[in-house]
């Protein structure tokens, strides 16, 4: 038997086993990716299925007689606005006697706590409405909102649900009268936070996040580019620049909560900056974003071919003229891409903001970088911690808003990378 034949036979004999192994590896790999995809799918599905209902809000439309006995012009903005609303509801509901206080309270609880303030603001703005009947559309309270959205099932035993049979009957009567509507919930974006889920919105968090991001950008962008140019173009190669490099790589991997400790101790403790302020949040995020921007900028500077530098240097330009006149403009798309990605990361960062107190309960939007505020991710954290059912769907909705911003930012970054970046 020649050795060649033996080789051939033995290879032949091993083939089946080896091909099976290959299929196994391939299947494991595919399975791993599908697991990751399934988790992503589960994440989005669960967010959408719990969050979509928060994008609409159940409202009741009432004919309200602004009773001069309850609301007197000389006492504005005080007055019995809730009594007026209860009376309006009573007219819409047949067979509900409003004599008893407890009944009045039960009827009044159909509407959101914010309804009376809505009425108050309208009357205060135009006192001539006193004595007239006006049409008013106001949000209903959380349990009725849940009932209308199907989250409370009337078929479950009465003891196990938040609304009893009478309450459901009242609401069904309003529905039958065509007074209930479910418009888009603009309140989610234009209201500030509230104890009541049906009134709570993201306005404060959006403005707080915007301030923090602006501060973060104003600090980290120039500092990051400056440091990157120094390291990449100007610094002598010595032990000091190696130290800075290792330091920057390490800063990029320091846990975010440690930055929170730094901010708490230095910015708030030593410098005496106010707690919960977007300014402090932005400064903290800037320190975290800086390494990202430095690394991205250095990569973009490195990608500019040496020939361009040499050509400019050969024409007698100084080192800095080359950098600012030629290299930096060419590297700008890459730098911007890295910056946007860094800012997107900063927008989703939560832990350091918790430590500097940006999880305060604040019912008005901040009016500047120094006033107390929340940010989008900390608002999500607050709502996720709240027991009311309405907050569960609002948390998901807030997450969807946050993810919407992140996806938009990343899409812009990808667009910049594809359209503007030149391949050398």
């Amino acid at each position, binding site marked *: 038997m020649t050795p060649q034949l033996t080789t051939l036979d033995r290879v032949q004999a091993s083939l089946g086993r*080896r*091909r099976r*192994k*290959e299929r*196994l*590896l*391939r299947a494991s790999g595919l*399975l*791993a*990716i599908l*697991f*990751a*995809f399934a988790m*992503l799918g*589960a*994440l989005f599905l669960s*967010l959408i299925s719990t969050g979509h209902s928060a994008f609409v809000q159940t409202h009741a439309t009432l004919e309200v007689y602004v009773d001069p006995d309850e609301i007197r012009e000389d006492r504005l903005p005080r007055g019995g606005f809730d009594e007026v609303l209860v009376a309006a509801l009573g007219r819409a509901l047949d067979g509900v006697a409003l004599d008893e206080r407890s009944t009045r309270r039960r009827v009044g609880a159909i509407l959101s706590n914010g309804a009376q303030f809505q009425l108050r603001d309208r009357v205060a703005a135009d006192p001539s409405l006193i004595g007239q009947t006006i049409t008013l559309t106001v949000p209903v309270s959380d349990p009725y909102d849940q009932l209308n959205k199907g989250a409370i099932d009337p078929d479950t035993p009465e003891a196990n649900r938040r609304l009893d049979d009478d309450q459901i009957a009242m609401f069904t009567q309003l529905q039958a009268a065509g007074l209930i509507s479910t418009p888009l919930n603009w309140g989610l974006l234009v209201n500030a936070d509230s104890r009541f889920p049906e009134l709570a919105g993201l306005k404060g968090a959006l403005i707080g996040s915007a301030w923090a991001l602006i501060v973060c950008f104003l600090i980290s962008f120039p500092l*990051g580019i*400056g*440091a990157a*140019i*120094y390291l990449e173009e*100007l*610094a002598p190669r010595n032990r000091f620049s190696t*130290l*800075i490099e290792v*330091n920057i790589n*390490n800063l990029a*991997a*320091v*846990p975010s*909560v*440690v930055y*929170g*400790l*730094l901010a708490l*101790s*230095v910015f708030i*403790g*030593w*410098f*005496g900056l106010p707690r919960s302020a977007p300014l402090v949040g932005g400064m903290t995020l800037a320190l975290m974003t800086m*390494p990202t921007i430095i690394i991205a900028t250095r990569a973009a500077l490195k990608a500019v071919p040496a020939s361009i530098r040499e050509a400019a240097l050969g024409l007698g330009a*100084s*080192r800095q003229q080359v950098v600012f006149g030629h290299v930096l403009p060419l590297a700008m798309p890459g730098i911007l891409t890295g910056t946007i990605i860094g800012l997107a990361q900063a*927008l*989703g960062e*939560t*832990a350091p903001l*918790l*430590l500097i*107190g940006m*999880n305060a309960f604040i019912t008005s939007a901040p009016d500047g970088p*120094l006033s107390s505020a929340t940010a989008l991710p900390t608002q999500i*954290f607050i709502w996720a911690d709240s027991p009311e059912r309405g907050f569960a769907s609002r*948390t998901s909705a807030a*997450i969807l808003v*946050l993810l919407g911003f*992140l996806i938009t930012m*990343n899409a812009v970054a990808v667009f910049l990378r594809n359209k503007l970046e030149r391949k050398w």
Partner: protein
Amino acid sequence: MTLLPFVLLLVGAMLAYAVNHRAAASLRSGGARLHSSPQYHGLFAALTVLTSALLLALVWLALDDVIIDHLIRRSLPPPDGDAASAGAMDLVMAEIHSLARGQTFGTPEPWKQKAADRLTAFRTGSAVALLVSLTCLSIGVLTLRRRRFTPELRARQGSERLTHAVMFACCAVALLTTAGIVAALLFETAKFLQKVPLSEFLFGLNWEPQIPIREDQVAASGAFGWTPVLVGTLVVTVVALVVAVPTGLFAAIYLNEFAHRRFKRVAKPVLEVLAGVPTVVYGFFAILVISPAMRRLGDALGLDVAPNSALAAGLVMGVMLIPFITSFADDALSAVPQALRDGALALGSTRAETMLKVLFPAALPGIVGGVLLAVSRAIGETMIVVMAAGLIARLTLNPLDSVTTVTVQIVTLLIGDTAFDNPKTLAAFALGTMLFLVTLMINILAIRVVQKYRETYD
């Protein structure tokens, strides 16, 4: 109001540019030979004004609150008796601050109202003084620059020296950040160690910081032993890595060797989405979906799963780490030279053999570096465990039980009041120090390994 000084110094810089640029340009049009072109004369002047004024503004803004605070404290009537701690003083100061903001609760004592008025006056005074001194400084520097202006002035070199210095300062910020982290952590930890001995902290088996502690009880009670917190962190980290490392590596192998190009083009961005999801979202996902699912699964199997089990938190953290490990491993595998792949295939390897016996071992150092960075991330990850893991420190290795982690304790100890003399608060900084040290060591090791690996194939 805070922005005004910055607007002022921008105006000053532009003015300086205009003045010197015009002076230089008019000289040149008069026929004189200049060393540098007019815009460099302008730039040099602008940069000198800008840097000096910016320096003044930053130092001023950093210090004025501290100084004013100090002045107000000194002016307050001495607190009744020496027993009143710094905490009581802080409370009074907080009240004065909110009075100054115009928030009144009840009727304040007249001396507090007076202090608040003084605070407001100081602040206004400080702001005005800053604006005045900025203006003076700008004008002074500008006049100096204008007077020093000669045709021979090497304005380009001057402005480049300044730019160089400014960019060096940018680098220094990165160093200062690290220095700030180390200083802040060590400072507060030293204060903590005055109240709790180091051996107690490192080797104690009980962590019960939430219990109110009398002054004389602190050291004796032994409620600040971090062992159970450390063990909890390790349990969650191990669960996360058990999920993430095999999944991430198999996914990378598939993408690198088997996937069609079209599949890869879709799969990589999708994995990037998974990597871009903020951790607070993962935390919510854990409490909304995974924890209940784990409990139901446990019930079905007859196991007792805690509502905030280490398993659920670790699983979600593992999902978060998958794309991180995948992209690291994919990059490391792609960095292996094509020649090795060709060599293995030409010997008659199947693709699986090429991958497992040649490419993977060759890429191993890079992959190990990535896994190390993932470990450091898992240890330092905060929001997922804050939302999905427990608060009570329990010394257990059972992943079905509820455990707490270092990061959870840091956050829960610091949410709410933060008086800096409270052992509770200081304990958070001590934990932070440990967290920083551990992750620092892992990071530096990982960065070293990865750099070495890159050098072998460059």
